[in-house]
């Protein structure tokens, strides 16, 4: 993992002191709320429905045991004993006081963490493939680039007052697990098809929210050493030309859309042509950062573990958990293990401080003291020996963290919604809980197979509902919470926006509707066909009648 050097250390410490001073100036009235708001947002602090909320950056989703323990300590000392992992690989505390925020940030700085730019109209915390450094389909580990971008974007003098937030994702693998096309900018590390040279493909203009758009390729191949200059060019075009007259039209996706891809590309390329080049700094930085991500000492192990195979045979519950939790590791005898934070009926992504501490121990014992946060609000232990899996699973079970549902219908993504969020139009968590309970039976879930349900509590789409196989959007209709259901979205290389199935439902109709859609799939699927494959083959319309039938029954 990357460790702060003296510059990083000084930077975050000074940043905390700066925020302490900003808070003092706010309390004295020197800063008005309007002036203070962007400053606190750029330090991750929101004012939510019940209290302040502090969003802590987990850059590219990588966390150490030591850091997780510190988060547990903060949860106990300054919050209410739990935290919430978000779809952007961050962690939120729901109850901090403004006056405590500087002390919390100091505790974060103690373990090389911060809350910088987890909110506000600036370049947000950079996300990456949660299987970085592990995946077999990886061309290059994306984390050095992501760390470089974390530093480059931090307190950027030119790009801290953008028209709107700006999200960057990086992947170095052939399969896009970071959903680049749903980001303002996506950086894909790839090999040039002819020369074999490693460089970057740059996408821009993706995003969800009120007007979902799929990111487009701005540059097919950007040689190494030119990334910062190219991103500077994109940012400058966006900062200058992006709309500021309407919050809902201010993201870069609208600019790319309104200018047209070619005109946008031309603008970026001409900016890039005249801008300074930081090739030497960039190359040197990447060379400095990269070794910190390749320090794990793996044992020489056979590809097949006899202990593991025997345990699976002897214990079917374990075998069930293994089915979806494991991701193949590039090193023989190891696996990356996804740990579901979606217990049946629980709050998606929530973790108690006790669980954090126990999990930190597990990561130390079984995974070199490292863990990852996924955008699906789950955790990953990236380097577990196959031999250790059974022991790991048993310990997880005791912590309530062995739910065998990764990628299944109850592995639901849900934003905080109206239970916490000031912008929400409806609740999302109770909807997730109702669906989760409905499909809680393990055999039934496995029978249904891979199915992603994603829920947002308002049009801002933090729950990524547009790209859920089934998406649910909470709105307000005639003074009631009302839910729109979409079908056919996909958060993958084939990024697709789901289509609306019909009129909005009340909260207690949603689980029934999902059940009817799923029943339609089970009735019509071909052998081995997954839910989304069946939707693609049959078309969304094929599911509409089932969806509407129930809605009419309810109305009658």
């Amino acid at each position, binding site marked *: 993992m990357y460790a702060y*050097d003296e*510059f990083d250390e*000084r*930077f975050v410490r*000074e*940043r905390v*002191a*700066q925020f302490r*001073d*900003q808070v003092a*100036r706010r309390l004295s*009235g*020197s*800063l*008005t709320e309007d*002036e203070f708001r*962007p*400053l606190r947002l750029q330090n991750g602090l929101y004012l939510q429905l019940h209290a302040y909320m502090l969003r802590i950056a987990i850059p590219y989703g990588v966390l150490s045991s030591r850091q997780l323990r510190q988060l547990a300590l903060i949860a106990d000392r300054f919050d209410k004993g739990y935290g919430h992992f978000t779809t952007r690989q961050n962690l939120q505390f729901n109850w901090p006081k403004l006056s405590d925020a500087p002390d919390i940030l100091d505790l974060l700085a103690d373990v090389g963490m911060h809350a910088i730019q987890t909110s506000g*109209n600036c370049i947000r915390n950079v996300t990456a493939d949660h299987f970085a450094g592990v995946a077999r389909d990886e061309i290059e580990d994306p984390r050095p680039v992501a760390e470089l971008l974390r*530093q*480059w974007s*931090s*307190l*950027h*003098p*030119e*790009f*801290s*007052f*953008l028209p709107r937030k700006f999200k960057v994702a990086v992947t170095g693998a052939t399969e896009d697990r970071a959903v680049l096309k749903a980001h303002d900018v996506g950086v894909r590390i790839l090999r040039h098809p002819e020369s074999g040279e490693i460089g970057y493909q740059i996408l821009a203009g993706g995003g969800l929210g009120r007007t979902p758009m799929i990111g487009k390729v701005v540059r097919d191949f950007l040689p190494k050493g030119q990334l*910062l200059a190219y991103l500077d060019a994109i940012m*400058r075009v966006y*900062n*200058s030309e992006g709309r*500021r007259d309407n919050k809902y039209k201010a993201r870069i996706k609208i600019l790319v859309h309104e200018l047209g891809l070619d005109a946008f590309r031309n603008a970026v390329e001409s900016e890039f042509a*005249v*801008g*300074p080049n*930081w090739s*030497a*700094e*960039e190359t*040197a*930085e990447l060379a*400095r950062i990269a070794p910190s991500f390749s320090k794990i000492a793996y044992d020489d192990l056979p590809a097949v573990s006899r202990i593991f195979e025997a345990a699976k045979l002897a214990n079917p519950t374990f075998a069930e958990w293994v089915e979806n939790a494991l991701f193949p590791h590039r090193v023989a005898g190891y696996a990356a293990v996804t740990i579901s934070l979606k217990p049946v009926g629980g709050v998606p992504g929530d973790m108690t401080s006790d669980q954090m501490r126990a999990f930190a121990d597990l990561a130390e014992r079984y995974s070199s003291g490292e863990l990852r946060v996924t955008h699906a609000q789950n955790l990953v232990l990236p380097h577990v020996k196959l031999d250790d899996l059974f022991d790991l699973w048993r310990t997880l079970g005791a912590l309530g963290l062995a739910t065998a549902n990764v990628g299944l219908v109850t592995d639901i993504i849900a934003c905080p919604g109206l239970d916490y969020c000031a912008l929400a139009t409806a609740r999302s968590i109770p909807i997730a809980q109702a669906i989760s309970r409905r499909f809680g039976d393990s055999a039934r879930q496995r029978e249904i197979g891979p199915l992603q349900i994603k829920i947002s509590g308002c049009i801002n789409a933090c729950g990524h509902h547009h790209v859920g196989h089934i998406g649910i959007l909470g709105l307000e209709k005639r003074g009631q919470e009302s839910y729109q259901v979409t079908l056919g979205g996909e958060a993958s290389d084939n990024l697709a926006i789901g289509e609306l199935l019909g009129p909005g439902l009340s909260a207690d109709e949603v689980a029934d509707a999902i059940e009817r859609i799923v029943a339609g799939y089970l009735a019509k699927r071909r052998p081995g066909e997954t839910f989304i494959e069946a939707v693609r083959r049959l078309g969304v319309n094929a599911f509409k009648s089932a969806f509407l039938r129930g809605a009419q029954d309810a109305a009658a």
Partner: protein
Amino acid sequence: MPLLDRMGWRTDDFSRDDVDGGIIVPLAALRSTLDARRAGVIGVEISNDVAVDRLAPYFAQLALIAIAFPAFGDGRGFSLARRLRQAGFAGRLRAVGPLIPDQGPYAFACGFDEIELPEASLARQSEAQWAAALGAISHAYQPGYARQTSIFERRRAARAHKQESRSHA
């Protein structure tokens, strides 16, 4: 209106109507002013969406370009300053608008020399606060901004130094 630079408050040697001394005119009046006052010290005030090309022909004749910040949250002026500097403007760059002290370092890093504030800012935000904000963060990561070297450049220099001393050893 109050004007400050890196050192603190300063007197404004420009005005918007005075015929003696420096004058700042709107972009629409630039041509005629240049024609009429060949010898004078002339500045121009522009909105933050003016294309650099429109001003570039006048760079040599312009002592100052003032960029309006309609609101402190509108960051277009930072990029425009940067573009003007990149295009070779070497005169004074002034930010005009309700910036807050915490934006001072950003403004100077992007190429501004001075900030003209509305009177209302003065009541709440002191010279000391502007000075403190300038020193809040010692080094920025981004290369190419401000006068001081970035963290990226410092690290590189430190490594080069280390390597050199090693090869001399």
